[in-house]
């Protein structure tokens, strides 16, 4: 949007290490990742299986805590937070989209999208309006009372996106959002993420596919828990912006 203005860093990772203990064995999922991501960036994280992409996403999304290293999100040091403050951060600042959708099977779509609002303490009347607006944005306004098992995979993922954006978070995290979808449906979903980015959202996604990654403006490659390359596509995006 306005590339000319000073970019605000929303997400700052320094030397993030995450090791898992499996019995006596130590698994180094991330070995010192440092990374800045600015407001309204569109980042794709790629890399072979087991390279630590999901681990990184979970740490960014405050679902997991790094073994060592500093992480600040929207100016706040995550390491200083207690359980319920972390829950709050996940609620307010982060919208998560999972490969397996992770909707509540017993709740209808409207309620699924209302859930972040409930945990955010939004009163009932407002809640319904906001949830309906979010579902309208993903084109599912006529399905409010359906349950997830009555929808296609693509529709489920759209519900998940509506749920992720309903509280207008600082970043949207999508871990292989198209991994369980055919390529046409996948493209629909990517179109939606593109729209969110165009509307000013910061979007980070994990993918194995080059043509999905092509939607992003910056591509990060991981290998064995380290950043192998970090490429921003200046040629395409900056000239457009500068031309304004």
């Amino acid at each position, binding site marked *: 949007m306005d590339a000319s203005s000073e970019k605000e860093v929303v997400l700052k990772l320094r030397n993030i290490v995450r090791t898992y203990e499996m019995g006596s064995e130590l698994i180094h999922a991330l070995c010192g990742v440092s990374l800045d991501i600015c407001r309204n960036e569109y980042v794709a994280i790629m890399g072979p299986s087991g390279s630590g992409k999901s681990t990184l996403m*979970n740490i960014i999304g405050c679902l997991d805590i790094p073994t060592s290293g500093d992480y600040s999100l929207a100016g706040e040091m995550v390491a200083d937070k207690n359980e*319920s403050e972390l829950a709050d951060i996940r*609620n307010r600042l982060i919208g998560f989209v999972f490969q397996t959708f992770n909707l*509540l099977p017993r709740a209808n779509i409207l309620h699924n999208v209302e859930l972040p609002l409930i*945990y955010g303490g939004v009163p009932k009347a407002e809640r319904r309006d906001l949830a309906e607006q979010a579902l309208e944005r993903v084109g599912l306004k006529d399905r409010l009372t359906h349950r997830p098992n009555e929808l296609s995979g693509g529709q489920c993922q759209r519900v998940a996106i509506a749920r992720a954006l309903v509280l207008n978070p600082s970043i949207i995290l999508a871990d292989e959002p198209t991994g369980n979808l055919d390529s046409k449906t996948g493209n629909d979903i990517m179109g939606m993420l593109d729209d969110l980015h165009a509307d000013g959202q910061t979007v980070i996604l994990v993918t194995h596919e080059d043509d999905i990654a092509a939607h992003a403006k910056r591509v990060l490659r991981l290998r064995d828990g380290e950043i192998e390359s970090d490429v921003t596509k200046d040629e395409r995006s900056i000239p457009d912006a500068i031309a304004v």
Partner: protein
Amino acid sequence: MKLLVDVGESLRIAVGAVTANKARGALTTLGIIIGIVAVTMTLAASNGMQQSFRQAAGSIGADVIYVSRMPWVTINDFFTFRNRPNISLYEAEKMVEAFTGAAIVNPTIFGRQPLKYRSEVLQDVAIVGTSEKMPLISGQVPEDGRFLMPFDVRFKKNVAIIGKDIAENLFPAADPLNKTINIGPYRYQVIGVMEKQGGNSFGGPNLDLQVFIPITSFVKSFGGRRNTNVNIAVKADSIAAMKNLEFEIIGEMRRIRKLRPAEDDNFSINKLDSLMGAFNSVFGAVLGIGLLVTSISLIVGGIGVMNIMFVSVTERTREIGIRKAIGARRRSILMQFLFESALICVLGGILGICLSILLTYVVNATGAFTASLSPGIMLSAVIVSALVGIVAGLVPAYKGAKFAPIDALRYE
């Protein structure tokens, strides 16, 4: 606000969870139902007994002070009372004199004698020697004939007023009025039949199996000095006046007996109050033991609920992960499961109460004893079952609440 929204959602989840697993919930509830029935029936039975006791004790009169040789309720110092003198008719008459115009005083003596009319014999009947003031104290009046008059007492007349059950037993066909009966070896004329008193469910004396005769005649017929022991009833104007009256009675008795200031009273003052107090403390202990025993079944029911809650938490681990990923705090998850177990138990409690209501009817219909369910008992049953649910749910709910979000999300 946030908490309120949280509570609403937790309740909604709890209702959803319980309705989704009806069969499982029903089985679990069974334990709670049995526990609640056991506890409420204990309470209902004790409540019924208490009511019967009050009814029976009601004839004693709350505003009457009794002067007797022995206290009604002795705990363990029986021997200190053993050497007390009987209260004589002479002392009783002095008391009547002393309180004339101030309070109603009625002396009575109890004894047991066989009763005979022609071929009909009743063994071991309660004979009450009393004065014309008795109806003013106990409220019992004759339905046929008349009660004692002052001259009956004064001239030691051999007249008797018989209880309703005695009338029916001794005179199955005839009218008892003016018939002559034998009380022990002595001949008495029946001048009245008392109204039916009833209300004898507590196993107390049957008030309809009594015969009233003038106290003077009683002493003349049956009283040696040794077995003449008078009880003196003094009726206060009001409950409020009782304290003062009690002091006056004690003072008067001491004066009549010429007790020196250093000497203890050698008579006892008895009131409904002290009887109720003793009853309540004994009764409280019995009830306590009953509740202790029955609450074991409730605890067993609670353990069943705890078990089911562990299953429920494990089943919903992934759901916990999803909720936490989008911002649920530990508190929210904790509440969700606590409400679920409380709901299961309250449902069990309500069903248990319904069953208890039914059982109460059955018990009372059989007449074995009276049970009485009060709204208070039902309310406390609901509260207790909710508490059992919360306690039973605590550990499982805590287990669910402290899952790390990422582990819960990965759970298969």
